[in-house]
């Protein structure tokens, strides 16, 4: 018997729907305050890797938080694989900036990655052999299997980032929102994250990566969304890939 977390529903993706569709989105941190995101529209097809480009304070993290339900929408709609927000918690995973995690908490890397399975377990159930195996597989994909028993406070910045992505892989989500994963990480992590992005894409999953170093990372993405002061300042900028012709590209 399962006791899913509140609002959790396992909805099947609508086969013809884009991975993410946003119409007229407006988000603010208080009901009457200034808009952090305003008049935002976008449609991202399934299976692409997109960069969300903008300087600090442009609204990248705010947009991600709105997409995964952490911030209430003031206006507009968001649909994920054809379903409204909250209808598919397990399909979306948000990787926050590393500073938002309490890395001093006394748990091992394996335990941390297993948390990616909680959405499937719900209340009262404990992670089983299958969940542990999936967590170990995710660590292997990120080339950090040897860190499984290490306490999370003893990880370097690059290792923390890889472990965070491993947790997202363990969740087996279809839409990944990565908030500046390549910020202040070592060259090895940069390479591993790049390889993993390609692997994730090859599995048909959709990835959106917030970054302000698009010029250096351009090869990783199929296109970019430009954001400044909470407003979209440029449309999608897809490369010449025939599979992306059906989107509202520039």
């Amino acid at each position, binding site marked *: 018997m399962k006791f899913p977390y509140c609002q959790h529903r396992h909805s099947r993706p609508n086969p013809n729907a884009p991975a993410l569709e946003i119409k007229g989105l407006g988000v603010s941190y208080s009901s009457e305050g200034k808009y952090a995101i305003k008049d935002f529209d976008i449609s991202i097809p399934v299976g692409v890797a997109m960069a969300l480009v903008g300087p600090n304070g442009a609204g990248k993290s705010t947009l991600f938080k709105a997409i995964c339900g952490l911030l209430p929408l003031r206006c507009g709609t968001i649909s994920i694989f054809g379903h409204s927000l909250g209808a598919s918690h397990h399909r979306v995973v948000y990787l926050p900036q590393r500073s938002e995690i309490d890395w001093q908490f006394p748990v091992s890397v394996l335990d*941390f990655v297993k948390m990616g399975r909680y959405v499937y377990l719900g209340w009262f159930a404990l992670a089983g052999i299958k969940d542990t195996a999936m967590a170990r597989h995710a660590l292997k994909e990120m080339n950090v299997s040897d860190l499984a028993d290490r306490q999370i406070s003893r990880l370097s910045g690059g290792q923390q980032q890889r472990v965070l992505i491993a947790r997202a892989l363990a969740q087996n989500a279809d839409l990944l929102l990565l908030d500046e994963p390549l910020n202040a990480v070592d060259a090895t992590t940069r390479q591993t994250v790049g390889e993993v992005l390609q692997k994730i894409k090859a599995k048909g999953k959709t990835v959106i990566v917030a970054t302000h170093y698009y010029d250096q990372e351009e090869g990783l993405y199929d296109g970019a969304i430009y954001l400044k002061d909470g407003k979209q300042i440029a449309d999608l900028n897809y490369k010449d890939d025939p599979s992306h012709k059906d989107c509202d590209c520039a």
Partner: protein
Amino acid sequence: MTHYLTDPFQYMFIQRAVIGAVLIGVLCAALGTFIVLRRMAVVGHALTHSALPGLVIAYLMGGSLFAGALIATVVTAFGIGFLARDENVYEDTLVGMIPNIMFAFGILLISTTRSFRDLFSMLFGNILGVTDGDLRLIVLIAAVSLTALFLFYKELKLFSIDPNYAKTIGIPVQVMRYGLLLFLSLTVVVGIQAVGTVLTNALLVVPVAAARLLTDRLGRMMALSCVFAVLSALGGVYASYYFGTASGASIVIFCSLIFAIAWVFKFIQGLWGRRKS
């Protein structure tokens, strides 16, 4: 020699004190683990001080001290949580302000009773004075709180490490936060029986701080904290019986001794490790 350990048990009040102290110790240590790791120790400190006016009003009206303290702490905990929703009111300001007002109000009320004995027992506890009724309430609160900790252990862990991720997968983090405050209030109320309003926070924090020095795994940390709290509780009861010392203060001194031993052990271990490398 063993008769020193067994002799006190011929008295019913010692048996009640030991059972009560052990249960309170385990409860404080288990919940205290999350309180310390979530950096809520200062909230625990605030709630312990807030209980005083509830205790005094219940005493003056001839009502249940437990009920009085519980109402005062729950009102404070939820009051802080509610007022802190206004972004212009900082939570740490409220935590620093409200308990002091409540404590001052409690002292003001005590000054009307003209009895310093009452003040002493409320401030510093008296585990040797636990009645059968008190013990039943301690057992009930310990059973409910420890069961809740066991059932929601996984969610509390995630909520403490990464509350945003917990929220995105559908865990009601605000409910968890208020739930933790409610169980903290209940724990503070039973802790007051053992060590009083002033020292209860020490029982919540010190065993956990000692365990944190010795392990970096949550499960082991909780288990070690409970062992330290039980040893301190037993040590405090024996010291109180044989030397006539205040039971609450004795329990906290034993906690502090264990922390000092853990710190020295960690320090020597660090020196040894550096020497080997």
